[in-house]
């Protein structure tokens, strides 16, 4: 019997991959990763294969875990291997600036509702819309200078690497852009 999720993928209906639910084996190994729920309703011109969807979901969650760690500790080496190109360069620059200014940013990541909206025919580019619920605190030394909890909207470009999907562009956009 086919699994329900597989059926949904093949029908091209809204697909939800819930890291915390459907990938139970991954959850134990990746308990520290933020929750990422991805749907692929209306994606084109190419459909996402189930395995690709699972990999993208995991790798996107891992990237956000790494971003939060590195911005909190001001360590570029924690940016990990799920970010590349300008995205990595920009975050590295921000971390260097934070370090110089003596500030740091702490995220409490309350999860990402991700919608895959574009997947090129050759499988080389995937575009995602992410509604990220983040509690953010900015510290200057020990002092909190900013606290905010809101939904952030990101337009994301991911490309496949040798064994993982990489975030190449992570652009925060106004809500109306979605």
């Amino acid at each position: 019997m086919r699994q329900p999720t597989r059926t949904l993928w093949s029908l091209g209906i809204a697909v939800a991959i819930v890291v915390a639910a459907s990938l139970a084996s991954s959850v134990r190994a990746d308990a520290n990763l933020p929750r990422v729920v991805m749907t692929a309703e209306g994606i084109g011109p190419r459909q996402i294969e189930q395995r690709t969807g699972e990999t993208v979901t995991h790798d996107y969650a891992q990237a956000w875990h790494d971003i939060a760690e590195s911005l909190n500790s001001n360590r570029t080496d924690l940016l990990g291997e799920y970010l590349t190109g300008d995205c990595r360069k920009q975050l590295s620059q921000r971390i260097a600036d934070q370090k110089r200014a003596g500030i740091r940013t702490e995220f409490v990541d309350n999860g990402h509702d991700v919608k895959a909206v574009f997947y090129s025919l050759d499988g080389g580019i995937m575009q995602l819309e992410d509604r990220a619920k983040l509690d953010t605190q900015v510290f200057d030394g020990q002092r909190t200078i900013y606290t905010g909890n809101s939904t952030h909207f990101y337009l994301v470009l991911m490309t496949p690497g040798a064994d993982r999907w990489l975030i190449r562009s992570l652009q925060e956009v106004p809500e109306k852009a979605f």
Partner: protein
Amino acid sequence: MNRKTLSFGVLLTALSTYLWAQEPVLNAPGTVSAGQSVKLAAQGHGSATFYLVGPNRVVKRKISLGEEIEIAAEDLKIAGKYQAIACNGGNCGNTQFNVVASQPAQLIFFLHPSRVPVSSGNAVNATALVLDREKNMVLSPAKVNFKIDLPDGSSSTRTVPATRGIASFAMDSRSRQGKVQVTASIDDVSEPRVIQQVAAEACGLRMTASPAGRFVTFQTDPIRDCGGNPLPDGTIVSFTKTDSTGRSTVDSPIKKDRAVARFEVSGSAKVSVACGVVVGNELSLGGAQ
């Protein structure tokens, strides 16, 4: 010190304390174009520490409240949400604004695959990313023109609206082999890419035999695809002989449109020819050919 002076001093201290306790108020325009400077209004009194936290930059400096804060274009190159914070003592006020991409100034253009068989449906796909000069994705409506130059010298144009900064389309490869150039352009920016259309599978593969003593030479007719495009030199053609001793195969590359193989034949034998997934004719030897 008389009472009046004392009262004035107390009032001044209270006022100073009140003003010091007020959190600074910042006002920013809702949206700023990437790479342009901006001025924020900072209400309050006295000095404060100003912070700008953006996607790629963090700025910290002293400001005087009540005066405008100028943020340099250099610090606003990357699109995204920027948090402006001003702290006066223990009190901080903040505002945020969006930096959005400016005008299209760059295209990242992918054309796949680099080699494609002729006459294949939707085999060529083009994807263009529309970026501003700072490499931000341009989300405002934009149309990308794709000019397609074919091997026979003809050309056509296709206009594709970009959605979320991406314009993409697929097209059939044409029937003639050769170079196809596709040039993506928007405003005065253009990016050309070239792919090679190559012959498809062989069509009507056929060979003839020329006996010479114990040996027979097998030679194909010129090998072309169904559109008449010659298959490239080096393409492998397989000749297979089956006789009483078993089966043997010779792989021979195409040279000048033809492939040739030579077998020693004693008794009756059958020889077939194939190229890729295409099977050609079969010849029977040692009896009627």
